[in-house]
């Protein structure tokens, strides 16, 4: 941990109403992240994390406010950290209204507040501002700190992979716009949708992925949600190997690879929790789970691959 006032990510005020910031702003580098937060560091290392700055505010008669500023390699990584949980009250900082590139279904939230904790995605910065005890006064201070943190920073678009998510599949299933998560790590995937105790999709920080839930549309007759996983690997060979790895472990009894298509391969199987399907095209991969029938699996996989191919063609 180093003092780093002169190069701080954000110029945090020394005082804020009745609150006073600790003089030291601690900087925590990746190799010391476990000292600061124990195993929780795995989350940030699972994204492309550069360093963390930590400050504390105290005030007479109030519990502390903790400010954590996670400087990430890219805006996509900071977005990913916010996307792990879309719950809470959307906060109108000066950027929160901007959808900035869509898609139309994307709510555009950039900061969410709940029970004393404000979480912010601001370009390549992810921030947590937490009052240990919520009060009207601490909430006001937390939200003011949020405005300080986002002030003057540019407003980046959501990751391209997220923009590729289909809004619906057929007329029967619709994307839950508060249940999608952008990630790179197998650990994050398992914390959202458990697939395997091992990294059978060969995920690492060179890949990017999004998983989303598609519950039955209100007009449908009940049923379970479909789960979609989209992955873009560094290159085609990695994607091909990852799909082969997945099939070997997840579908061992099938003992076949997905049939080849002109640009990759695809396959659909009925397993314990419904129909699943997967398709690869070049370096992108789409997988669906828990589909009620083969048609739904084919539709969502096909639409996803088409959209991913569009991203690739546009070099997004």
């Amino acid at each position, binding site marked *: 941990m180093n003092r780093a006032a002169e190069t701080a990510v954000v110029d945090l005020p020394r005082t804020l109403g009745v609150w006073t910031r600790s003089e030291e702003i601690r900087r925590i580098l990746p190799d010391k992240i476990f000292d600061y*937060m*124990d*195993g*929780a*560091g*795995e*989350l940030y290392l699972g994204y492309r994390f550069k360093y963390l700055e930590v400050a504390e505010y105290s005030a007479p008669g109030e*519990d502390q406010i903790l400010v954590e500023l996670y400087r990430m390699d890219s805006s996509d990584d900071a977005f990913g950290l916010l996307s*792990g*949980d879309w*719950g*809470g009250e959307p906060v109108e900082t000066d950027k929160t209204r901007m959808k900035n590139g869509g898609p139309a279904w994307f709510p555009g939230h950039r900061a969410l507040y*709940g*029970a*004393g*904790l404000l979480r912010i995605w601001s370009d390549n910065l992810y921030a*947590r501002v*937490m009052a240990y*005890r*919520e009060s009207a006064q601490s909430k006001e201070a937390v939200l003011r700190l949020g405005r300080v943190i986002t002030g003057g920073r540019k407003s980046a678009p959501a990751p391209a992979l997220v923009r590729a998510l289909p809004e619906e599949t057929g007329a029967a299933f619709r994307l839950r716009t508060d249940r999608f998560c952008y990630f790179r790590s197998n*650990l994050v995937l*398992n*914390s*959202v*949708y*458990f*697939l*395997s*105790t*091992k990294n*059978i999709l060969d995920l690492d920080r060179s890949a990017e992925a999004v998983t989303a839930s598609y519950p039955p549309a209100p007009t449908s007759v009940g049923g379970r949600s479909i789960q979609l996983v989209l992955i873009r690997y560094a290159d085609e060979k990695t994607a091909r190997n990852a799909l082969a790895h997945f099939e*070997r*472990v*997840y579908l*061992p009894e099938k003992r076949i690879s997905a049939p080849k298509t002109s640009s990759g391969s695809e396959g659909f199987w009925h*397993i*314990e*929790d419904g129909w699943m399907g997967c398709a690869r095209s070049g370096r992108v991969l789409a997988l669906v*789970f828990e589909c009620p029938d083969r048609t739904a699996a084919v539709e969502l996989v096909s639409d996803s691959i088409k959209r991913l191919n569009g991203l690739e063609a546009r070099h997004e």
Partner: protein
Amino acid sequence: MNEHHTCLTRRDFVRGTLGAAVGAGTIAGAGASGQQRSLPASRVTVLRDQNALAAGNKVDSVVLKRMLAETLQTVTGEKSARNAWLSLVKLSDVVGLVPTPHLNPTHQELVDLIREGLLEAGIPRGRVVLAQGGPEKAKSCTALISLPGLKAHWLTGIGTVLKNYIMYSGSPSSYHDENNVKLGEIWNLPHVKGKTRLIIVDALRPLCDKGPQPDPRYMWNYSGLIAGTDPVAVETVSLGIITRKRQALRGEPWPISPPPLCVAAAEQRYGLGTSRVHVDQIGWALDPLL
């Protein structure tokens, strides 16, 4: 061995064969000394008092002291807290208190009251020590009182009883990721095995999601203590409370992810106890989640 034989997947989970696979040591490195036993149900005490937390979620130590005494008496069947402690530990023991330091840490008031209770029971001051930390901490104790905070954990599903001894392994990172299923083996290490006299879970204000850092939206005033001598039984009750709270919050099933494989492994692979539980429910009855 093919990889599909050495890792578990969602399909095992859906088939309901996860527990069997864990017990059979399917997980790589889960050890070879399986000891499945048929045990009678273990008793677990869940005692709650809605006044345990005052305004601002500050602990009311007077209320908590009363809760602790009643919990001890229920677990041991003794008529006083003093006798309860003396039925659990000997005057000659070095008693290590093992609170959780991270992510929803154990309330200091609970640790202090337990220390006070042991001293009042006659354990010499120098023989009641804080024992959270590396293997040497456990080695220096002849008896352990485990005091985890009740919480879900983003890497292990649940991070309460079994995970509380992770530092005793001397290599905590060896139990991250897929290896969290092996957490039970730590309880069988020579410097740990047989020393745990009591587990008291701090369920005053649990965390039911999400981690890896505390999010107050997922904390609530359960205002309880969960206690027993069987780590698997106490973890099973703790897991049930977390699971039911998650469902209540969302109004729909919200399974813990990843699934807490370490609990089934602790029972079936490491023989630490049983998930067959008899709960003694005492006190505040609103939303017990049992």
